[in-house]
């Protein structure tokens, strides 16, 4: 079967892919609960409000893909994936943003835990991906540099 990349991109954009719906739905259902997490101005507070704890174990099984230097701080592409079993959610934090919690993805049972999004970053910061699986928290982090650019030779 050949479904090329452009078709997939279009399908996702059209909202026909299951993943689109599954990410949206819980957000509405839990809006009241997550509001304090999204409004928190410290990463620890945001993690506690969202996940119940600010402690997540560094794990090589969490893959966080982000650039070393952002081409454009306004839209920094990141991908988080893991092969862990029973993944419930993936959340992404930017420590130096005014509101560190950027996104939470609810992963329905049986779904591949592989999400991509774009972050807005005002300055250089640690970016942390937290995977909740079997009720426990696992993380991977990476510093992404935001620079004024220019002056390259």
């Amino acid at each position: 079967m050949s479904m090329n990349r452009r078709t997939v991109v279009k399908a996702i954009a059209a909202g026909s892919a299951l993943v689109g719906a599954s990410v949206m739905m819980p957000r509405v259902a839990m809006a009241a609960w997550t509001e304090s997490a999204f409004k928190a101005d410290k990463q620890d507070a945001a993690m506690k409000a969202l996940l119940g704890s600010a402690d997540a174990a560094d794990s090589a099984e969490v893959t966080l893909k982000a650039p070393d230097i952002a081409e454009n701080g306004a839209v920094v592409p990141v991908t988080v994936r893991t092969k862990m079993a029973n993944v419930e959610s993936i959340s992404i934090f930017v420590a130096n943003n005014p509101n560190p919690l950027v996104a939470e993805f609810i992963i329905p049972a049986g779904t591949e835990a592989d999400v991509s999004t774009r972050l807005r970053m005002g300055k250089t910061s640690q970016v942390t991906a937290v995977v909740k699986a079997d009720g426990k928290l696992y993380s991977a982090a990476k510093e992404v540099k935001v620079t004024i650019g220019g002056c390259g030779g």
Partner: protein
Amino acid sequence: MSMSRREFAQLMGLAGAAGLLPTTGFAAKKQSADLYEVPNFGNVRLLHITDCHAQLLPVYFREPNVNLGIGPAYGKAPHLVGDKLLNHFGIAPNTLEAHAFSYLKFNEAAQKYGKVGGFAHIKTLVNRLREGYGRDKTLLLDGGDTWQGSGTSYKTRGMDMVKATNELGVDIMTGHWEFTYHQEEILNNIKAFNGEFLAHNVMITEDALFEGADEYIFDEDSGRVFKPYMMREMGGARVAIIGQAFPRTKIANPARFIPDWSFDIFDRELQELVDQIRAEEKPDAVVVISHNGMDVDLAMASRVSGIDVILGGHTHDGMPQPTVVKNNAGQTLVCNVGSNGKFVGVMDLDIRNGKVQGFNYRLLPVFSELLAPDPAMAKLITDIRAPYTDWLNEELAVADEVMFRRGNFNGTFDQVICDALREQLDAQVSLSPGFRWGTSVLEGQMVRMEHVLDQTCLTYPETYARNMKGSDLKLILEDVADNIFNPEPYLQSGGDMVRVGGFDYVCDPMKPVGQRISEMTLDNGEKIDMNKEYKVAGWATVGARSEGPDIWDVTANYLRDKKVARISKLNTPKLKNVANNPGIAAYAKL
């Protein structure tokens, strides 16, 4: 105006097969045969040029006296200057080679040995190196920064250099400043280029893919805009060549010209590509033509395995020998071949039984007086320049001292540009980017419009004059300093420190970002107040287009007015904690 012997020779189409011009002076005395006599070794010859910055004619180019290595780069190639560099590579001082590879006694030696580079001279040398080895066993690779840097490349949107590289016979290239034209122009230029344009690390954005970029990109599934690699059978061996474009193009240069493309180093993707090529194509050798810059190439060579040779550019380091980097799969040779057409790298490889068994390397300086110009190339260059000669040749001012740019901090030509910005745009202070291109003018020689263009010619030349707070100025200096002095090469973006006019500062390259710059002080002795506003003039804005006149006109107006290019005060920082660094010499403020 007097015509030089070389210009005369070009005009007459006078040229030997590859040897000497009938001449007097240095060229007559020097036994040049040994310089370009490279013994044949192995069965594959890779000829490597890079970063010519569209210099079609011979030029002067002064190597840096400041090229600091910080952290793991301390004291290692390419971060060696002057005697330290000569000692490291075993080059005798006061020789032609010492002049080629170092800044030492530049003015005197440049007068003695003459200009370097020039496409007609490079062509003669390349022909000789190909024919002497067997044309079918050689490849000519160009690391990019070829389509930008001169008045003619600006006027023709890089097409002059496409024609020149076609005439030269470049087989493969990759790019950086090539991406400072518009997307469609770049694609058109590549179409007109007879060789292959390779870049594994330029990806299409999802948005562009959605809008129909699949019409022209190389591969929709990987997202690669350009062909990532090619195979070549030569000398009985299968050689894979991968292209690595400058990974920080959209950070160092305007993203607005190339909105649909995204760049990075892409280690993981490169490792996958190397592994795939090794498995499917069964190559005997894997070569990368790279525009990473030497520090990034050295780091990449330690992190990605399975590459035999990286032919590198970007940082304009003329390294007489490659650096050998050990990694999981054995070793990788990392080369860098300078800039402005000054050098041709010759990498001879002995490839047998499915692997590289040995190598012989020479970095040949192109001394124009020792190589007759190739007549066909000379004619092409004359034709390219013909519509613009009045503009290019205008004499502006006499150089009071050697005018140059290259080095981590202000060069003399930068100071002229910074002074011109302040005076012409009525600003307290000025900023000028620390590009590594820009040719040199000897003391007492005429600075022509062409020289100003060599220093300034890019596709976003508009100037600005606007108020900035002291804290904004500091932020700019800190960010640029981190792009050079961050000990992690992947966090560097290449280039040298931003040049300043009207103020001085103290810089400690060893400190982390935010703490390197201090004591910013105006020329009148007043400390720069972080909360006060200052009128700042500059050029080459990467974000939005500025509204002021083009930088070359600002500089030319200033020089016409002054008639002498003279520096009254060089605004170069006082440096801390680098006095013993082998990457600095003859620097006054330590």
